[in-house]
């Protein structure tokens, strides 16, 4: 559906997007993930044909965005960052204007406008001026503008920024619902959002793709290490000695010395070995009280931080 081939964007000497390539299949919901300034918006602006890349090629639904912009752009609904809207128009006028811009046929226009108003639940405010709407509504109006004209691809740049938790859930549900019938790219620097909605994640940092995979596989990549987090009360300070007696222990690290006298450790053990039972029994025998014992699950958050950290280390070495 979308092919990005070796795309680079330079501003003078600054490289905003550095030789990125990826493919997005029909029906996928893809998350573009990265810290602020990583090149997410630039990438989206290039795919939508708003800015031209310095090098490389973008093909949307079989049409090159530079050589055949009309046909390529017709397949895309874009919700830009910061939801730019015309404040002096009403919601309905704005959607009507977007339908005209997207060259929706006159006959179908009325019906299609009504359809997106319903999809985005804007019925109650459709005759209100956009400037009088709350942030959450504005976001939905922008979404309606992207949706009108039935584009197959939706590109949403940070669709939940600046919303309250209830609105975020609403927008997420809307995106999930739209994902059943559309190919979607969303950008975000919030990991939980991406892992909830997307079935593929592309992690970008300083203009480069550092990983692309399903959220699950990315988590697994980081999960190689078998780690436990344990909080104990250890009056005789013999915990390290005792722990070392257990087979398969690689490392034990003190992470927190709590005020109430308990201590939190992270224990790393060999892979595929569950040492929880042994720890529990041994500690109990030696008079060490366990307050908390849990297995550390890797999250996308860890994957993200690890990957970005690794890349930076590599760069520093070079």
């Amino acid at each position, binding site marked *: 559906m979308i092919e990005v081939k070796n795309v680079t964007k330079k501003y003078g000497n600054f490289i905003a997007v550095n030789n990125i390539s990826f493919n997005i299949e029909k029906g996928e919901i893809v998350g573009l993930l990265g810290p602020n300034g990583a090149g997410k918006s630039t990438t989206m*602006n290039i795919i*939508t*044909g*708003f*800015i*031209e890349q310095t090098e490389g090629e973008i093909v949307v639904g079989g049409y090159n965005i530079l050589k055949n*912009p*009309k*046909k390529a*752009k*017709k397949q*895309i609904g*874009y919700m*830009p*960052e*910061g939801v*730019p*809207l*015309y404040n002096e128009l009403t919601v309905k006028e704005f959607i009507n204007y*977007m339908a005209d*811009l*997207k*060259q929706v046929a006159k006959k179908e226009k009325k019906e299609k406008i009504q359809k997106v108003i319903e999809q985005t639940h804007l019925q109650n405010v459709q005759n209100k001026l956009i400037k009088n709407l709350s942030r959450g509504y504005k976001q939905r109006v922008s979404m309606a*503008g992207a949706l009108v004209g039935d584009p197959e691809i939706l590109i949403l740049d940070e669709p939940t920024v600046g919303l309250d938790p209830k609105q975020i859930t609403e927008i997420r549900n809307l995106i999930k619902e739209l994902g059943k019938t559309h190919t979607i790219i969303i950008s975000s620097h919030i990991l939980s959002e991406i892992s909830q909605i997307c079935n593929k994640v592309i992690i970008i940092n300083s203009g480069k793709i550092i990983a692309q995979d399903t959220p699950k596989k990315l988590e697994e990549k980081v999960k190689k290490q078998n780690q436990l987090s344990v909080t104990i009360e250890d009056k005789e300070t013999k915990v390290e000695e005792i722990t070392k007696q257990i087979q398969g222990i690689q490392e034990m690290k003190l992470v927190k010395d709590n005020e109430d006298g308990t201590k939190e450790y992270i224990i790393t053990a060999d892979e595929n070995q569950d040492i929880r039972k042994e720890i529990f029994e041994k500690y109990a025998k030696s008079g060490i009280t366990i307050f908390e014992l849990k297995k550390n699950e890797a999250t996308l958050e860890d994957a993200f931080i690890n990957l970005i950290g690794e890349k930076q280390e590599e760069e520093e070495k070079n």
Partner: protein
Amino acid sequence: MYLYGLFLAMCSVFFYLDVVEYGSLQFENMFYSASTILTFIVPILTMRMFAEERKLGTEQLLYTSPTRTSSIVMGKFLASLFVVLITEIFTLLYLAILYFFGTPHIQTILVTLLGFLMLSMAYISFGMFASSITENQIIAGVITIGFFIITWFLPNFSPILEPLSLINMFDKFPSGLIALEEIVTYITFTIFFVLLTMIVLQRKKSMK
């Protein structure tokens, strides 16, 4: 909207000063003054055209749509011209008043209105261009007014520069003469700046 009001209010003053005061039936006379006002009204009309879109980010909606840049430019240009055309039609009310007192020379008036539209067209094309090169509408407005005033006074420096003065060219129309040379100049000027606007917007895409 307030521009309509402003322009028409000024026109009624000119209608009184330039036509009624002289007990004249020459409706066209008020357009000398009206063209002066046009010099200041057009920049206000055009300064927001692209500058504001850029500032608000709504240009992203425009340029990511399947509509061509050239169509967007033409659409904005024609819309502004239409605004001027409507005000022109409103001024015909004054003409109706004159019909109570006699028969004004209708051909001369039509030629004047044509000239006024030509001048507006040229002005709008430049104003639009100025708006396309900046994201600050005030700067766009100042560039436009500055340019109009400079071309206004150019003939004062040297008579050779006479053909470059947009507003002076208009002065031939109220005499009832279809000034072909002037019309060609206006049209050429307009096409030049409309094309330049399209090129600027296209170029900005790869610079952004």
